[in-house]
């Protein structure tokens, strides 16, 4: 009946005697299982020849993205002199005719709204951190804080598209898809690039996200980010339909593989072999993804690192833990998009909630990675798409204020693989309005991330529409060497 004795061996009796998770012989015939784990890391597959360009410091990255633009002067960029400037107009010498969004360009005046939060020195270098971030404050020795990020975009859609894909207009490939394209995966049972969109506690009216932020643009779509969902199927269409249990699925796949093997033999199309392999990987994902999201094996002391919300699926804390579990399993790039940071008004009402969402989990993630010895080769990035203005948008009082979009400076931090801890890079003026030292463009940030992953941003190209497309575009940019270890 079958040409291949291994296929013939698969009798009915074998079908019923095997465990439901067994891998079919037919599948084995057409692919070599390359299951890997953190212990077996050197099995990268699917990357580009010649990559990495140099020895990478980070094998994987976790990007905590704060969508909506967090207020840097309330969190990371302490501006003590502003207390004396309460309700005084931002001097023209500072604003320098800077273009404004049309949400505040009509304002008669631009009164300074000092942060109402207390800052204190932390860590061995005495980094000033806001009281809103008590847990992250204890991590200053592990992070490189960049206070001099800037961009050109002043509205959310273009700005977030810019920082995530290297261009303000839709159509380009996202950071994660570039990494997945260039470096491949370390675990074929999970996608190389995963995305999570947790809940948030600030205002309900949150800025939108767009699939393009983790899309593959001009790159083949297999490099796009795969959403790990907290409701329904964790990965789209992961679950078998009602009435199809793993035994049935396995049996079906065995026949499917044999039939496809027949097609492959008859037509000789290598894609058919690839398809057999993809179905087998799909089957393995049906086990590996639920296993990934099942945190019942996490000891209490680990859960505690991430704070009280860790066990609630879909919270930022929960997704941070997920990110660690993915990193552990070799997922190349995980990006978490936390929304709700677009605080045009009522910052004191909103910001503490947002900070509570992310503070302990971010710090917990660093601790957890470190305890496992993974922080050395896992890059963690935290930040948003632009900053906020020192001047107030909306009513200003001693207890309440809002802030408009500000592209000219914002703060982010990086930690882990190849990043020097305890560093503060860049400086803004006393209004946190202009950068006075060491500006870092979003392109520089992306170049630095690529660099840490072993990639030279300038040589990492993909020909499309007549251009050698780069994540960092055609304009000048540089790796921020000063924060590298």
């Amino acid at each position: 009946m079958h040409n291949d004795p291994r296929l013939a061996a698969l009798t009915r009796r074998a079908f019923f005697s095997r465990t439901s998770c067994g891998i079919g012989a037919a599948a084995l015939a057409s692919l070599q299982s390359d299951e890997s784990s953190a212990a077996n890391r050197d099995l990268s597959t699917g990357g580009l020849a010649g990559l990495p360009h140099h020895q990478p410091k980070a094998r994987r990255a976790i990007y905590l993205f704060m969508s909506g633009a967090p207020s840097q002067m309330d969190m990371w960029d302490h501006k003590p002199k502003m207390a004396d400037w309460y309700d005084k107009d931002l001097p023209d010498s500072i604003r320098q005719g800077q273009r404004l969004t049309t949400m505040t360009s009509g304002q008669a005046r631009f009164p300074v709204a000092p942060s109402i939060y207390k800052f204190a020195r932390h860590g061995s270098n005495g980094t000033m951190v806001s009281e809103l971030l008590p847990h992250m404050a204890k991590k200053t020795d592990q992070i490189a804080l960049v206070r001099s990020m800037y961009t050109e975009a002043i509205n959310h859609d273009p700005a977030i598209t810019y920082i995530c894909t290297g261009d303000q207009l839709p159509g380009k490939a996202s950071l994660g898809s570039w990494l997945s394209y260039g470096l491949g995966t370390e675990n074929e049972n999970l996608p190389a690039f995963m995305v999570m969109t947790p809940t948030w506690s600030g205002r309900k009216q949150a800025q939108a996200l767009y699939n393009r932020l983790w899309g593959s643009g001009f790159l083949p779509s297999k490099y796009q980010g795969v959403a790990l969902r907290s409701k329904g199927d964790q990965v789209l269409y992961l679950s078998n339909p009602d009435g199809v249990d793993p035994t049935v699925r396995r049996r079906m796949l065995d026949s499917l593989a044999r039939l496809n093997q027949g097609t492959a033999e008859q037509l000789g199309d290598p894609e058919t072999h690839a398809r057999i392999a993809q179905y087998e990987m799909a089957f393995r994902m049906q086990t590996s993804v639920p296993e990934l999201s099942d945190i019942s094996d996490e000891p209490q002391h680990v859960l505690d690192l991430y704070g009280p919300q860790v066990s609630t699926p879909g919270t930022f804390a929960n997704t941070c833990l997920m990110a660690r579990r993915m990193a552990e399993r070799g997922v190349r790039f995980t990006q978490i998009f936390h929304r709700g940071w677009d605080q045009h008004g009522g910052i004191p009402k909103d910001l503490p909630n947002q900070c509570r969402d992310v503070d302990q989990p971010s710090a917990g993630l660093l601790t957890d990675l470190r305890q496992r010895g993974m922080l050395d080769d896992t890059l963690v990035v935290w930040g948003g798409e632009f900053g906020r203005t020192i001047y107030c948008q909306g009513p200003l009082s001693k207890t309440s204020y809002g802030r408009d979009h500000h592209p000219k400076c914002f703060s982010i931090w990086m930690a882990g693989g190849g990043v020097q801890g305890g560093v503060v890079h860049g400086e803004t003026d006393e209004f946190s309005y202009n950068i006075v030292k060491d500006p870092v463009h979003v392109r520089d940030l992306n170049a630095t991330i690529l660099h840490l992953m072993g990639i030279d941003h300038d040589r990492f190209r993909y020909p499309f529409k007549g251009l050698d497309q780069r994540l960092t575009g055609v304009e000048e940019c540089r790796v921020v060497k000063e924060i590298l270890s």
Partner: protein
Amino acid sequence: MLNRPQHVAVMTLVTLGITVLPALTQWSVAENVEQIDAPDFSREIRPILSDHCFACHGPDEQTREADLRLDTAAGLSSVVTSGDLSKSELLSRVNSKDADLLMPPPEFHKPLASAQRKLIELWIKSGAKIEQHWSFRPPLQPDLPPHVSKDSPASIDYLINQRAKSAGLELNPKADRRTLIRRVSLDLTGLPPTREQVTAFLSDESPNAYEHLIDRLLSSEEFGRHVGRYWLDLVRYADTHGLHLDNYREMWPYRDWVIQAINDNMPFDEFMTLQLAGDLLPEANQSQKIASGFNRLNVTTGEGGSIYDEVFTRNVIDRTDAFGTIFLGLTTGCAVCHDHKFDPISMEDYYSLFSYFNSLDGRALDANVKNPAPAIPVPTKEQKQQVGDFEETLIDLRNSMAMPIRTVDSAQRAWEQALVKGIAPRIERLMPTRIDSEAGTKMTIREDGSFEFTASPAAKDTTTIVAPIKSGTQWQTLHLEALVDEANNRVGSSTNGNAVLSEISVEITDDLLEGQWLKVPITHGFADFEQKDGSFSIRQAFDSKVNDSTGWAVGGHQKPGGRSAWFVIPALMAEGENGKVRIRLHYQSKFATHHLRRVRLSVSDTSPSVPVEQRITLSPISATGPFTVENAIAAYGRKYASQQGEFKSDEVFNHEDRPYRWQERADLTEVQIQNLPTVQDRSSVMLLHQHLSAPKATKVTLLFGTDGGHVIYLNGKQVAISKEPQELNPLALEYELDLKQGDNDLYFKVVNYSPPSRLTFAFRSPAIDTPRQLNQLLNVAEQERSEQDRVSLMNFYRKVYCLHPDWLALVDQEKGVRKALKKLNDSVSTTLVWKELAKPRQSHVLVRGQYDQPGQPVPRATPAFLPAMPANAPANRLGLAQWLAMENHPLTARVAVNRYWQQIFGVGLVKTSEDFGSQGEPPSHPELLDFLAVDFQTHDWDVKRFLKTLVMTDAYTRSSKVSPSAQKIDPENRMLARGSRHRLDAEVLRDQALFVAGLLTDHPGGPSVKPPQPDGLWKAVGYSGSNTVSFKPDNGDKVHRRSVFTFWKRTSPPPQMSTFDAPSRESCTARRERTNTPLQALLLMNETQYVESAQKLAMRVLSAAEIESHPEAERLAARIGWLYETVLSRPPSKTEQSEIQSLLSDLIAYYSDQPDLTAKVSKNADPTEAAWTILASTVLNLDEAVSK
């Protein structure tokens, strides 16, 4: 040109496939260059120069080094000496060992491979022939040897076969007929053939059987639904705006237009012209205007905070780039910020092209509405007819209403005279000729017309009087006087002197009515006194309800003396000599004998003269704003200034950190159209306030109209809301306002979507005095009034005061028709179109592409390196379309035929179908591409003929079996020695599954539909205020339509599509990648509609009538055969048959042991059904099923 021997280099070019640096790897394998003849400059040398040198020595002046250009003959000649290697600096520089002299410089990270340097050397040695880039030269019909038949398929095959053979490939034999019919059906209609169609084709023994099949497919409606899809990817058609809120965009009529045009086999030049410039055609019809929506397919934003000019510029760039990609196959976008580095497109060229697309008569921001202007309604035939009828009626009615109306005008004169002091209204006392008491109590009529009870009244009673009434006068007011006399100065007949008039009714009869009584409505009423406790206001007496607990209670026990009430009766007018009124006074209160003792009635021809102390006084309007808002929808729920609170004229409000104050705006008067302040390109809100001081609680009617939305608050409560932007219809809306006694705070919140913002308002109530400025106007003699004043006064009278039945009849009709029309129009779909500004905008080069840095002005012009515009072509998009269709245009036809080729063969002859420029991949078969381009043009751009030619070729119909050696030589099948084989597109996969299951419905189009998708995908990304933030699946037949009709949200495209490489439709996509991922496997196995299809397909197998006729023993095999033939168009092999049988029996055995599990798959809990469902799913998942 074909005689030249093929050399290894060309081979590697087409065989290596995807590479990161194509130019580098293409050549790096070529070892034996020495043995080959002169390299082709255009195909082999120029790409090297382009990729490695042009960036610094190319068209871009700004970055040009050493003043050396290698993209022109002149420049090249300066560093190359034909045949002389030692005198060619180009060669010595690329071969230099000195890092300072070496080109390209090492820091450029683009070193030349040794094979590339060798090629350059060889090229110089062999004469250094220089040519223009291949795609910029007009296509030439290649010389074909005389033995080659001139019909197109044969010529194509000749050009293909030559190349394939010389590459050492063996041509595959023709595929079998079953494979062929499946392949060509999928390629031309996106659907597999039915079993019947396969049988018919197999049994058609005529030599033209295959051609007949093709003709049938080409004439099928499914053709356009499949082929149109490629165009929709290319032009980035979608159902949302794409940026920020990503709200719904109504654009599907354009999609249907594309499908129709393709099914109608519209010639490609016309197809192109209508889309680029349909609006500019003389007397453009609706279909041509819909086509012009092509220019509106770019993503747009309505994000609050956007800078208008920046968005404007971005939109125009997007359109210009789309034009470049779609029609020219060029990446014009590179020239936004600097001269193009590889192609000869200067910034000036770019902005000249840009200027064709910069003069939209509409705003750049989309205001988050579904149809940002310009948009046109696209009614169905029936709707169109109905709208036309309604509109005609409305015009007639409005004309009548604007014209003099004798009766109404004379009533106006009477009203005017009554207003002007000294002219008394006409008052007639009613002299009853009959009086009746329902209870039979005796009543008498006095000489003055008053009537009274002359015996003890009953507990409840109804008095009816009949009185003659004079004809020819429009009576407006009925005055009721409750009289007292000296002996008893309380009006009521009860022991405490009180009375309750439960209801009063008025009827009329006259010569026309011939004795029939007609009810006359009472619209308003006033009394000089009414009881405040309980439901005893005058209103209760004309609410058409007679009951024992409500009515006008006159407070006779509280206060002595008579009472007066005035009732507004707009329709009281008699014709002829026998006019009569019948008036009934109902005394049905639960309080016994609460009757009016003595009553006198009179009528007058003016509005009731409400006693001064009862009049409502109005303050001047105060206004504050405009308050900007990020999107208009948000404004309705938001609080502005003191909108629901107490009014304080000196209060200051903060909004976005600006103080706002109340401004008294006495100029904002009633009736006239008022312009309110707005904010350019932003949505905004104005708040207006008016005090209404009412001496008692009463109802007034507010007549209102805005061209945005509005919310009306009275005394802190929202009383009306209109949430849609609308066309201003002055005073068209009517809202009842319940005024309380004393001060009433009335606020109008006017929500403007985009400027202008206009408002009209007025009050209708007899208790509201005519506006002061009107009295002034009335004091001007009629003949001395200006025409404008006359019209204004007429409008005011008619809209607010006129109660003449002739007028009211018109008003009612107009209102009815308008309402019906609005309902109809709301149901009519719209689509975005282009409309050109009367005067085009001047374009400028934008310095470094910055929107706010205009440089030199540029005229509309096409790029200088391409042929000039045809003489007499207009300087607009129509001219641009004529230019594209010019016979010698090198790009249009090449780019178009290449895409059709790609569609049919899987890969274009130019693989980079979006880029025909220097950096694009050169064609695998340049002569063939030229042949096709010329062929397409000379056959009048006939698309169906062209596609037919392609599928008639041997190359297309070959078996797709690949031998190991063919796989090695030509892994990508660019030589086409075998039939092309690849995974089907997302849409085809889904449609095929639904089709074989018998689920696919035949539907011609219309609004996009939403088949189910997993919960939460839109929510995970959506802006909370977006109208596409929550996905609600459709039901019924809508979920089983072809995928081309699926709703496409750009920021979260349907996962069934995007998982299989469908683009997001945010930018132009000329070709899709074809990936193979586990996520696709999961989708095909587990997605709802694929599961449903498997279930339905299984039921079809089990119930197929033709199988029942088989003997029992053969049925199983027949079923498996049926399943295979339905999905794959062929019967299974023996091996397959037994594999499927063993799967089936395993599954039946397994399900038989697990009834609970079985019930989840099979409705009938039947293990056989369950097993067949899995079987059907297995076959749908076969590699063969998902591939063509």
